[in-house]
């Protein structure tokens, strides 16, 4: 069935076409190289920014302003920040973001000024798609990547995946270099726009030999009206919350800490009261965030006069921090030919152990995308891929029945080994069990907010069992969608294991990572928790400011 594989050659392959992937593609084209984006969904509506409204860290090039902005963030980063990275992303964002004005229609503010840093998601992503196409990038929509491809010389040299629409079942891209821009992982909570973000890039990177960092900073939750994905913060900035007995829940010490709500939710529904919202904000709301007003209208709730139940949605590493460890100024990883951009990368250099939601994350996505694109373009030009070179898939967790369909003259299969082990678990039930474990362990706000050695050890045992069941499980059908689904489950499970192992390794509380069995906050020597390993998960501590 090799004729069902569509193959492409390019200089830079970008996996993921959300906020970071689009900027990467635009920058790669500017650097003068060919660029292909493989996107799981549709480039322009997919990714968490498309249904939100990202503000960017946007500081004019005045020395005093920038120094102050960086100093504030360095203090919050508690020893894990890197002022040079902060400077770099502020500068990049300030210089690059206004370029979107060719495709994004800004409405001036009341003073007639245009606020370049504040963009509404659906329009921003639509503009990014159009800009990437205008720049000459090739976009493969509905084309989730399943595996990276490696060259004998140790470089990552492409990827392969499935096509959910169109006339081929599979695609394969041979590339001089690869940028992962697959976003964070929210474990399929109902986070707005987050269902495609299942940690695929983290798994692909680790299988290729990259290390992760900061995976313990993954305990981030957002308030949303119960049963809805509406995880948009602005409307809740005037909120008061009440427990089942009608007692008001104390305001959190830090704006993103919803641990008191998490505790109250264990006793029953928590109700939200927005009656303190000023009249003017109520009137402006439809034009600021139309998806917020429509949500309440369709629920039949007047949020300003009626109390309504809320829930907490897990965000994992999305507005958490952890991800693939960036090893240099070029957004490179431990693996040659592999670069990272956006939420898939660890943002510790610019946020430390606290969230970068609200401004820094979007600036990081944009700027790391530009930086990774330029480095990947240079790397691709310096290491042109020989047409005849043999590429090997670099990992296959959750894909064990995948038949050798890509065995063209240039690609050998790594599945022969797996297949020779004989039939493995033909399992639809394994997958639903894994979903339950993931939900209970990773999406429980109290479990994530209040971590201790015992709960982490129990989680670790359940998750390794889940990994074992999935590792060689056989999807019920070998169709592209089923294979993708099993691969996503494997990626979420692997991600959950790295989060849990890293949380166990950081025995002190720090930033969003809270240990109830430790009275220390931070350590004398600030350190990163590095992690990795697919079948055998490992962690190690590394003092901040040291290399490797």
């Amino acid at each position, binding site marked *: 069935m090799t004729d069902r594989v569509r193959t492409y050659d390019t200089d830079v392959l970008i996996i993921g076409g959300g906020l970071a992937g689009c900027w990467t593609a635009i920058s790669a084209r500017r650097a003068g190289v060919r660029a292909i984006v493989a996107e799981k969904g549709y480039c322009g509506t997919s990714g968490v920014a498309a249904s939100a409204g990202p503000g960017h860290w946007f500081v004019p090039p005045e020395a005093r302003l920038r120094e102050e902005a960086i100093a504030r963030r360095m203090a919050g980063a508690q020893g894990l920040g890197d002022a040079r990275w902060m400077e770099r992303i502020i500068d990049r964002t300030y210089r690059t973001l206004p370029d979107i004005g060719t495709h994004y229609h800004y409405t001036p503010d009341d003073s007639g000024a245009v606020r370049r840093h504040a963009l509404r998601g659906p329009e921003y992503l639509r503009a990014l798609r159009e800009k990437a196409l205008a720049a000459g990038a090739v976009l493969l929509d509905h084309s989730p990547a399943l595996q990276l491809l490696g060259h004998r010389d140790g470089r990552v040299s492409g990827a392969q995946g499935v096509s959910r629409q169109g006339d081929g079942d599979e695609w394969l891209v041979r590339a001089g270099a690869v940028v992962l821009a697959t976003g964070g992982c929210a474990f399929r909570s109902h986070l707005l726009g987050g269902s495609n973000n299942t940690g695929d890039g983290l798994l692909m990177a680790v299988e290729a030999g990259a290390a992760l960092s900061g995976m313990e900073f993954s305990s981030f939750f957002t308030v949303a009206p119960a049963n809805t994905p509406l995880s948009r913060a602005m409307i809740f*900035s005037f909120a008061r919350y009440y427990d089942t007995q009608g007692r008001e829940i104390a305001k959190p010490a830090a704006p993103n800490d919803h641990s008191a709500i998490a505790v109250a939710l264990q006793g029953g529904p928590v109700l939200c009261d927005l009656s303190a919202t000023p009249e003017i904000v109520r009137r402006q709301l439809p034009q*600021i965030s139309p998806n917020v*007003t429509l949500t309440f209208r369709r629920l039949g709730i007047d949020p300003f006069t009626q109390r309504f139940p809320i829930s907490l949605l897990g965000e994992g590493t999305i507005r958490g921090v952890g991800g693939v460890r960036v090893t240099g100024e070029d957004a490179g990883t431990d693996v040659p030919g592999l670069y990272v951009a956006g939420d898939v990368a660890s943002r510790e250099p610019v946020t430390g152990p606290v969230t970068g939601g609200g401004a820094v994350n979007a600036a990081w996505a944009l700027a790391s995308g530009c930086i990774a694109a330029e480095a990947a373009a240079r790397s691709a030009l310096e290491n042109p891929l020989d047409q005849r070179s043999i590429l090997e898939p670099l990992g296959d967790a959750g894909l064990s029945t995948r038949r050798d369909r890509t065995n063209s003259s240039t690609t050998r299969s790594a599945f022969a080994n797996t297949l020779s082990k004989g039939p493995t678990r033909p399992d639809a039930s394994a997958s639903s069990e894994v979903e339950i474990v993931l939900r209970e362990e990773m999406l429980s706000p109290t479990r994530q907010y209040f971590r201790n050695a015992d709960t982490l050890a129990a989680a670790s045992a359940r998750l390794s069992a889940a990994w074992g069941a999935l590792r060689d499980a056989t999807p019920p059908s070998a169709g592209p969608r089923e294979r993708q689904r099993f691969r996503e489950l494997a990626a979420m499970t692997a991600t959950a294991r790295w989060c849990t192992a890293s949380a166990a390794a950081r025995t002190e509380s720090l930033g969003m990572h809270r240990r109830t069995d430790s009275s220390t906050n931070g350590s004398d020597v600030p350190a990163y928790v590095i992690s990795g390993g697919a079948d055998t998960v490992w962690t190690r501590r590394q003092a901040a400011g040291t290399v490797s």
Partner: protein
Amino acid sequence: MITSLDTERCTACNQCVATCPRDVFEKTEHIPTIARPQDCQTCFLCELYCTADALFVHPEAEPAMAARLTPSDITPLLGEYRRESGWDEWSENPRYANQHWRMEDVFRLARDG
């Protein structure tokens, strides 16, 4: 979750098939079907791209509540997201201009009063 596709309004343009990030719709010889509702992420974006205002997404992620809605509940709500977002034919109407820039001012008001 995606709730309905109004077969009378639908022009079979297949925009929803192309743009849904979760690949929920399936092309047919006629109008598309909602083939994989369980994959829907309730992002409302298909409504923005459907210029015929044929699609309706209920804000609850599970289908229970949406199942209670009747066509007479849904029809008056069709197209409101596209209109309020100021897309397509609504783009010149100042009432629907994109004022996203106000968000930071609202946050500031909440913080500093």
